């Protein structure tokens, strides 16, 4: 998932491993954290990291106002036009996709459960056809019934990426769409039954252009949230999204606030997964980050929607105050921060020179630059642990930089005295700036001189680092990068960032992995229907990327999250690696 999108996943075993390591009295932790960390594993779920595996402060009490806030506004509340993890998590309070993630702590949160649909998808035709049956008695907030035709319309509608620029393009790429279909607005009369069929108001059948065994992951995308054609106003639909979930929008002021109140047409009998505890939600946008943290500490606000952790200023406060520390969780996410090593410009077109960059880098320094052990574990490859097929790849050492090996590689590359190149980073992200500075310091020791160039996040991929014409003309050799999984498998994480055939004129996230061997493995993974074998292939592809020295992974991301005061049912869902927003209630 691009940019700050935070939807993520990781497999149970690896997560549990990371957690036990965390609770096991790490000697670098301040003394205040040791006791609560230990008690987290005990039955009474309180203390540091209690929310990772337990429901903290469980309750069924209804009522109250849940106050949420975020430092900015996200892309859109329109389910067909959003690509932020926080938004995918939150929108489920007012919208219901066919399938969604089980509201449960930890690894259980990654399980898919039927939402609008009665059951998970039924496949036929070798995983090329997928059928879902809607539950009976579903209604929108205005009392009209929800039909499978609305789901079909919603999926087709968001294929129009000129109108709805945000959001993934999986349905565009995988549905068996007729050639003459452009969009629901431009070609409304084209028969699209070869892609999606609705034999009756309860049934919907998806036809894919190639087999995919994990289609339920697609069905869990917000794109399957029903939208009746009569109510669709295109890009303006975001001003009044028709609720299918337990809450409906009361006030919509983009950039300022949203308030949601109970949707009396929602029938709990049709919805086994939502508790719908609070009477209303107050969502404030554009709150300054430090202010937001302080208000959550004091209890004035309940939830930071972004779910990416507290600001640097609050990290020390939370670390040093035992009471606050007991309210904190430090989940690992399916997100990797890395540095792309671009192989277009010499001498980095030579693999040995790329290896020299990786050998020369101070991996511990890079971890510190990203925010230290609380912000992430040192990464060995692109794919984060917890995604099926992950293996610890020991192609390169993880220490503070190996000058001898770097020099050796430089000699092998024919540049024994080093070389000069340029590194780009996102200037509005202090951590990426620190990464760039750390690289400059470490590589200077082996004779590689870096010039640093910062660009704003909003144009980073469209006009600079993600635009091959620019990087070639300006001799860009290194670029900070980061990627989070759209869902929990190699496809959901790797396909967009290692397949060289996805590289376009601009707006690329894959900046450097251009290897026919990797592409072949991607094709192999797409074609493999057996999950275990498929995972193994993604693992091989991950290893292949490291062999080619196309990327320098920095950290597998972690965030320091703070549980709100007086909030019930708080836990970290493995689906998004932030608090699950479906279950929350107010004391």
């Amino acid at each position, binding site marked *: 998932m691009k940019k700050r999108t935070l939807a993520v996943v990781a497999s149970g075993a690896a997560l549990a491993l990371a957690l036990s390591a965390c609770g096991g009295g790490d000697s*670098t*932790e*301040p003394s205040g954290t040791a006791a609560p960390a230990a008690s987290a594993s005990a039955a009474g779920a309180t203390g540091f990291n209690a929310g990772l595996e337990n429901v903290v402060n469980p309750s069924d009490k209804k009522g109250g106002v849940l106050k949420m806030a975020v430092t900015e506004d996200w892309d859109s509340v329109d389910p067909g036009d959003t690509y932020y993890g926080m938004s995918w998590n939150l929108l489920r309070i007012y919208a219901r996709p066919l399938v969604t993630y089980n509201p449960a702590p930890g690894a259980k949160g990654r399980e898919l459960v039927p939402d609008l649909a009665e059951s998970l998808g039924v496949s036929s035709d070798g995983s090329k056809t997928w059928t879902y049956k809607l539950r009976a008695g579903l209604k929108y907030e205005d009392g009209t019934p929800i039909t499978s035709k609305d789901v079909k319309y919603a999926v087709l509608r968001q294929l129009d990426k000129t109108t709805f620029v945000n959001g993934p393009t999986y349905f565009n790429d995988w549905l068996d769409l007729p050639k003459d279909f452009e969009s629901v607005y431009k070609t409304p009369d084209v028969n699209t039954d070869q892609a999606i069929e609705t034999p009756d108001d309860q049934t919907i059948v998806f036809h894919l252009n190639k087999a995919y065994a994990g289609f339920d992951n697609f069905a869990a995308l917000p794109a399957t949230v029903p939208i009746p054609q009569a109510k669709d106003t295109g890009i303006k639909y975001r001003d009044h999204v028709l609720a299918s979930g337990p809450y409906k929008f009361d006030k919509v002021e983009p950039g300022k606030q949203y308030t949601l109140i109970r949707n009396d047409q929602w029938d709990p009998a049709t919805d086994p997964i939502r508790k719908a505890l609070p009477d209303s939600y107050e969502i404030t946008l554009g709150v300054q980050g*430090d202010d937001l943290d302080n208000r959550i500490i004091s209890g004035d606000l309940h939830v930071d929607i972004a779910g990416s952790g507290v*600001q*640097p*200023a609050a*990290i*020390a*406060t939370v*670390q*040093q105050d035992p009471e606050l520390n007991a309210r904190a969780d430090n989940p690992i996410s399916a997100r990797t921060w890395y540095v792309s090593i671009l192989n277009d410009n010499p001498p980095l077109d030579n693999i040995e020179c790329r290896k020299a960059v990786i050998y020369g880098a101070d991996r*511990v*320094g890079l*971890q*510190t*630059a990203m*925010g*230290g*052990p*609380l912000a992430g574990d040192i990464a060995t490859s692109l794919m984060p642990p917890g995604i099926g097929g992950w293996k610890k790849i020991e192609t390169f050492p993880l220490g503070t930089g190996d000058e001898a090996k770097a020099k050796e590689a430089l000699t092998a590359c024919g540049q024994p005295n080093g070389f000069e190149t340029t590194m780009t980073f996102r*200037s*509005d992200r*202090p951590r990426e*700036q*620190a990464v*760039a*500075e*750390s690289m*400059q*310091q470490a590589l200077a020791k082996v004779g590689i001189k870096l*010039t*640093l*160039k*910062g660009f704003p996040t909003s144009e980073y991929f469209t006009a600079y680092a993600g635009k091959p014409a620019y990087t070639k003309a*300006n001799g860009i050799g290194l670029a900070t990068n980061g990627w989070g999984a759209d869902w929990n498998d190699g496809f959901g994480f790797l396909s967009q960032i290692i397949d060289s055939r996805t590289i376009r004129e601009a707006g690329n996230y894959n900046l450097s992995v251009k290897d026919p061997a990797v592409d072949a493995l991607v094709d192999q993974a797409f074609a493999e229907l057996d999950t275990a074998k498929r995972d193994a292939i993604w693992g091989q592809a991950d290893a292949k990327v490291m062999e080619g020295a196309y990327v320098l992974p920095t950290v597998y991301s972690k965030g320091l999250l703070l549980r709100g005061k007086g909030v019930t049912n708080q836990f970290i869902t493995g689906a998004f690696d932030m608090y699950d927003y479906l279950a929350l209630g107010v004391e």
Partner: protein
Amino acid sequence: MTAPLDVSGEETKATPEAVLSGVGGPKAIQGRSLGQIAWMRLKKDKVALTGAGVVIFLVLVAIFAPLIVSWFGHPPNEFHQEMIDTMTMRPKGGSGISGDFLFGVEPQNGRDLFSRVVYGARISLLIAFFATLISVLIGTVMGVVAGYFGGWVDTIISRLMDIFLAFPILVFALALVGVLGQFETQLGVKGDSLRILLLIFVIGFFNWGYIARIIRGQTLSLREREFVDAARSLGARGPYILFREILPNLIAPILIYATLLVPANVLFEAALSFLGVGIQPPTATWGAMLSAATKYYTVPHFMIFPGMAIFITVLAFNLFGDGLRDALDPKSSR
């Protein structure tokens, strides 16, 4: 022709009075130029002299930054992450201030704050001085031309001044630095030198309005004075009168406003760096350090040292500038 500075004023009268009263040695009889008088006034102004002293000190610090840092600090961009507590990202022991790190270290990277503040002086002063020079050059030329020639020339230049004065400089500078920064190959310079040149240009080019307006006013009144009339009646022409008769009389206001513009430019550069369009990291500037410090507001020393550096520089220049004005132009009221 004698320069008007020497023929007009009290000092010509002073000589016969001194002779008549018969006091003082040969020194008392000597004529004193306006410059000398101003210097005497300035010497008595302790506050202004302190300001001047601090300014000289800052300039020396900027010039000898590498030397100072090699004695008392570490290279400004060198990481000292061993000084950082990686769990909190704070310097170990709160600030890391010690004999080794005089101002402590910055959070996260552990770079030596003392070295960065010292090196920051280079950027700040360099940009502020040269930007001031550009403003003063453009402002003086525009002001003198407008004031002396009058008529439609004055109208055009005055409107131009109004436009520049009404310009949202900060917003425009933000855009301009961003846009021009991309034309490295076309401009033939890159990296820090490009950024420094850009900042000098942007800050200098958009600040000439004030000084031009003042110079224009002064020129307007000067050109009607008797000595200009006299020169004109003797056949002197435009350029001669401009450069030999009027400009020497403008030295005082130019000096004063230049001195007062420098601190404004220091602040402007800091603001641009604070907003992230200034010099690129890792090069240290005071504004960028302040900007980084806001994210660690619980680590006060990170903000205090660059903040104090800006404060002291601006205060010193302002005190000196005020003193200079009092000395050169005692009739002006504050």
